[in-house]
């Protein structure tokens, strides 16, 4: 008996982290994507500490639109500002916003949806009508209004504004899944075993929809990076003195820049593409890891 117990202790169950890592190592593309994402993130957040933002965004009339050279690795824009520096700070801003918006809207939307779906009935009815109300609001216009109202907004305030209008989709999706899950025998069994509603929701039902959550959150992350770039492209994101991938891309609205000065917008465009692809690859691997039957590792 003693020996048995000792053996049991050694034989630990694989933790969730281990399973995730094993899955990532099995899928080389996802591994490369993850490394790329980590490097990019570490690089932009690390380097931007040492970069002087004010110096980068200050106008230098003697170096307008210079092509890539030793002095400016990626050349300068029409204000003589270093594109490489802007790219780093811009990527940092875009990533930060994308992650923040996804997290805020995701956490709120998931909690909202799972509660609505699990309890059902009148609670579900009221919560869903609130969602309907938010859905019919012309959110792009409202974001633009908010952005023009708040004078000096930061990454955080901008994220909050965007998150306030992007939690409904995930909430609805999670709700429909929760409606299905709560009817399954294992949720009913938990009820007869005396488990509280709170524990059934967050410990029994939620783990069963993680794959859905991860996939949606990943897609949302890509979409939110895109939305931020779009808003900045339109001129309602950050002003020019706070660069983001979108502001760099918006220089391409000038046909001259688009045709002859590729160094201003092409790196930003490629980076957006690569970021989204990498995020998606990692998301796919995570989705497989969340479902024991689909694992490769």
């Amino acid at each position, binding site marked *: 008996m003693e020996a048995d*117990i000792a053996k*049991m202790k050694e*034989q630990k*169950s694989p933790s969730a982290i281990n399973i995730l890592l094993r899955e990532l190592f099995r899928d080389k593309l996802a591994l490369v994507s993850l490394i790329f994402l980590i490097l990019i993130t570490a690089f932009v957040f690390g380097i931007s500490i040492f970069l002087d933002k004010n110096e980068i965004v200050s106008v230098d009339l003697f170096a307008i639109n210079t092509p890539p050279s030793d002095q400016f690795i990626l050349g300068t824009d029409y204000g003589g500002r270093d594109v490489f520096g802007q790219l780093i700070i811009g990527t940092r801003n875009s990533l930060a916003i994308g992650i923040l918006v996804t997290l805020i809207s995701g956490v709120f939307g998931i909690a909202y949806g799972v509660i609505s779906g699990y309890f059902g009935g009148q609670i579900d009815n009221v919560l869903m009508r609130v969602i309907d109300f938010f859905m019919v609001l012309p959110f792009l216009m409202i974001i633009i209004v908010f952005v023009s109202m708040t004078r000096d907004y930061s990454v955080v305030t901008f994220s909050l504004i965007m998150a306030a209008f992007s939690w409904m989709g995930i909430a609805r999706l999670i709700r429909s899944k929760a409606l299905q899950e709560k009817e*399954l*025998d*294992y949720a*009913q*069994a*938990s*009820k*007869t*075993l*005396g*488990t509280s509603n709170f524990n059934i929701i967050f410990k*029994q039902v939620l*783990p*069963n929809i*993680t794959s859905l959550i991860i996939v949606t959150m990943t897609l949302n992350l890509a979409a939110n990076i895109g939305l931020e770039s779009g808003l900045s492209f339109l001129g309602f994101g950050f002003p020019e003195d706070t660069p983001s991938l979108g502001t760099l891309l918006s220089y391409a609205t000038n046909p001259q820049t688009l045709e002859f000065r590729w160094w201003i917008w092409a790196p930003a465009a490629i980076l957006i593409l690569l970021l989204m692809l990498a995020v998606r690859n990692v998301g796919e691997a995570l989705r497989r890891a969340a479902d*024991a*039957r689909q694992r490769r590792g």
Partner: protein
Amino acid sequence: MAFLEVKDLQVYFPIKGGILNRTVEYTRAVDGVSFELEQGKTYGLVGESGSGKSTTGRAIIGLEDITSGQVLFEGKDITDKKAKNKNFRKDVQMIFQDPYSSLNPRKRVLDIVAEPLRNYEKLSKQEERKRVQELLDIVNVSPDSIFKYPHEFSGGQRQRIGVARAIALKPKLIIADEPVSALDVSVQAQVLNFLQEIQKELNLTYLFISHDLGVVKHMCDNISIMYKGRYVEQGSTKDIFENPQHIYTKRLIAAIPDIDPRNREKQFEFRKEVTKEYRESFNNYFDSNGLAFGLQSISDTHKVALPEKG
């Protein structure tokens, strides 16, 4: 005082319709069912699909809302959902029909079997693991497999894990909702015999819901036959199988296959006879809506749904 007493239980499901989604009608899933259970015995609840037998079990444990009627457990009224307190939850457990969906696919066996223990007993990790291994040992699942996931087990093993979870708190009553219907025959016997064994050990009471008369005959001391939400006949296993009074019961028993091929002709004739009798005497046994009448006692243990003598 009866152990579990059900008085005139009704469970209706609303049918919504019309412009404002009003309730236009009800499906009478369980329509006035009364019975009593004694401790330590097995009660069978038999009926065709849709007869309300599962709903009866689910209503008692609180998974369906009770429309009207009363459920008394050890003399305490537990009809209302709020009255189903922790003690009741601990004393009454359920075995589910489908072993593939009744275990959370994302949980390891340890977490599944320990769930009721975590709700009611404060155990240290070591104690908890030991208890789970003991329970798995009782149900003949290898105690080494506590870190496996449900999908790594066969149907019979899963159902036994479900049983281990149900007996973890040493309940007094187990509602077994078709516990072997999803299993193949060789495994059925295994699970059934095992259920009988632990019944003796733990003095359990079973409410055994099934559509398989052979299984019910093997398991139960008392049998009730349900049809369209009502009882048609209620009695000891002997009463039901040797002296069926209601035509519906007779037909059900006639439908049990006989393994002896020499009796085939005889069985066939007998079945034809019963079917004929069923057609001819339908109106004597069912009211104008095709529902069973109220139960009349014909002996101490035997009750049959017959029209009032007039």
